[in-house]
């Protein structure tokens, strides 16, 4: 098989539903390729079409338009039981009437794998997910984290071409969720199978993924690696959905080489890389942790805005300031508690906010 054949390929996939006599497009045209062995995330709010997209990859839904390809082969109309793809369901969907061993062996038995090989493979996978010794347990006798690992083993034991995971950590508490994130990454490296991970939790997607497709309203808004998604959001939606972002809007005063000089208020001057002409209105974004807060006017060459401290919140590893600009825009600033927990400014103080031009981006 040639190296460059992608594990999964979606080509102009559209899914329409009939709801109350009206056609609703859940997925409005998604094209993407997922490489072999990649940890790929579909990230977006509920109703963005990520789950429908995944269900089309699994075969539970047939696309209204477009093609689904698995290792270069068109599987658009192949039912799920004939696809070499397995899924880890939200809330696991373990067979309640079977014990752990029977749950995990289910797929191999349906594929008529020899009993000796089943024994070997189920044993191996249970070791990988750290459940050796619990073969006889019923799902209801296990904790959420253990059920989660049974679900993972039940899918992985079949050595699928790709593994789909539908918000698999949603039902776990925070501590366990973080533990499972690391665990999932380790397992994926160990088995080398393509993972397609569906989640609405941006931190989960950022932590684990090789690449992320951010979806909104049935379309992919941005497809890039986590760093780029976070540092260079391609749209207002992505900037707002991933992490905390400050969205600013201003008029281009002048163009200085690659930089636009944007004016908000009298003493504000923002430098931002971008393409626009003087007089245009542009939207731009800057992350709260990129901003420096000071009571004295900082050096030139930085973006600079002046405002008044409103709410000041102590958050352990950092302080969060809500700074109101003259025009009423509120900017959030995170200041790390690196040396001591003292704050630079108090509520009501006038402060300067500054950041490097390359830390802000214009948005489409």
């Amino acid at each position, binding site marked *: 098989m040639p190296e460059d054949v992608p594990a999964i390929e979606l080509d102009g996939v559209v899914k329409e539903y009939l709801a109350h006599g009206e056609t609703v497009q859940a997925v409005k045209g998604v094209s993407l390729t997922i490489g072999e062995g990649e940890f790929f995330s579909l990230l977006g709010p509920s109703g963005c079409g990520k789950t429908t997209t995944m269900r089309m990859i699994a075969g539970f839904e047939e696309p209204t338009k477009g093609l689904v390809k698995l290792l270069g082969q068109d599987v658009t109309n192949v039912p799920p039981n004939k696809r070499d793809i397995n899924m880890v369901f939200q809330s696991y969907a373990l*067979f309640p009437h079977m014990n752990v061993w029977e749950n995990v062996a289910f797929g191999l038995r349906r594929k008529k794998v020899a009993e000796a090989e089943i024994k070997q493979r189920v044993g191996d996978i249970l070791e990988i997910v750290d459940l050796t010794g619990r073969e006889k347990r019923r799902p209801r006798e296990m904790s959420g984290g253990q059920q989660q690992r049974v679900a993972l083993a039940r899918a992985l034991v079949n050595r699928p071409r790709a593994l789909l995971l539908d918000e698999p950590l949603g039902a776990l508490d925070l501590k366990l969720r973080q533990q499972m994130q690391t665990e999932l990454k380790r397992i994926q490296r160990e088995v080398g199978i393509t993972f397609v991970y569906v989640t609405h939790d941006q931190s989960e997607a950022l932590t684990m993924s090789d690449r992320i497709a951010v979806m909104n309203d049935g379309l992919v808004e941005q497809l890039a690696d986590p760093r780029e998604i976070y540092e260079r959001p391609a749209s207002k939606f992505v900037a707002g959905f991933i992490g905390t972002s400050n969205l600013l809007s201003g008029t281009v005063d002048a163009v200085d080489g690659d930089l636009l000089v944007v004016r908000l208020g009298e003493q504000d001057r923002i430098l931002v890389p971008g393409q626009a002409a003087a007089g245009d209105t542009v939207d731009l974004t800057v992350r709260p942790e990129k901003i420096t807060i000071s009571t004295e006017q900082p050096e030139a060459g930085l973006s600079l805005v002046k405002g008044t401290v409103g709410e000041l919140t102590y958050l352990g590893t950092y302080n969060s300031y809500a700074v109101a600009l003259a025009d009423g825009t509120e900017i959030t600033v995170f200041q790390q508690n690196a040396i001591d927990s003292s704050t630079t400014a108090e509520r009501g103080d006038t402060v300067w906010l500054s950041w490097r031009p390359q830390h802000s981006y214009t948005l489409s």
Partner: protein
Amino acid sequence: MRRWTPYWLALPAWLWLAIFLVVPIVAMASVSLTTGNLIDGFSQTFSVSNYSDAIAKYSTQFVRSLVYGGVATVIMLVLGYPVAYWIAFKAGHRKSMFLFLLLLPFFVSFVLRTISWGFLLADDGILFGTLKGWGVLPEDFHVLATTVAVIGGLVYNFLPFMILPIYVALERVDPRVIEASYDLYASRFSTFRRVVLPLSLPGVFAGVLMTFVPATADPINAQILGGTSNTMIGNIVQTEYMVNSNYPTASAISFTLMAVLLIGIFIYARALGTENVLEAAAR
């Protein structure tokens, strides 16, 4: 004080059960061990000959009742399971309407429904009379007063009690578990056999109990739809009690029936108990 509230609230129900279930059973047990007749009076002799005599005399009817009840239950299971399945998985938002339709016959009395079945099945009734008139059926064709009519009546009258528990069990099956089975290479048939059926077995178990017991003991269907060769044990109890005023024998038969059914249910629960069947299905 608060701790006792649930017990106080349950008290009326306990009293009800004690007075109207336990007392009559004890009274009946005592009657079944008496000898005598209506004219000379009955005396408590604790003789078990009532039991041995009744079993010897009515063994045919005992066996026939169990066979009729058993056959009717099997037919109800075969007919009812697909209906329950269809309502649970395919009826969509019209589920409650179909459940209501299922219960609709209960708005008419049990006896009346059976009598109207009698009219329907009568040799010269609307159905067969007309068909005979057209020459579709031979003149000597009859259903009324046969085994078919009695078992048909039992099936008709008790079918909802088979469907409802199975429906409830199927309704509780998580659709994602069914999807998981398809995802793990199972065909539709295999998914039904390995996942849906085993998960619905508690409903099947309840449905069989709720139909087999009353169908076996039922006197109405045999009386209205059956002939002299279709007499069931319920009819014998009725005749012995109401017509012959032979209370000891009637009580002894009732107790024997109860014992046979309880033993049967016990064996059924042990042999085909949910846990056992689930174990088998998992393989």
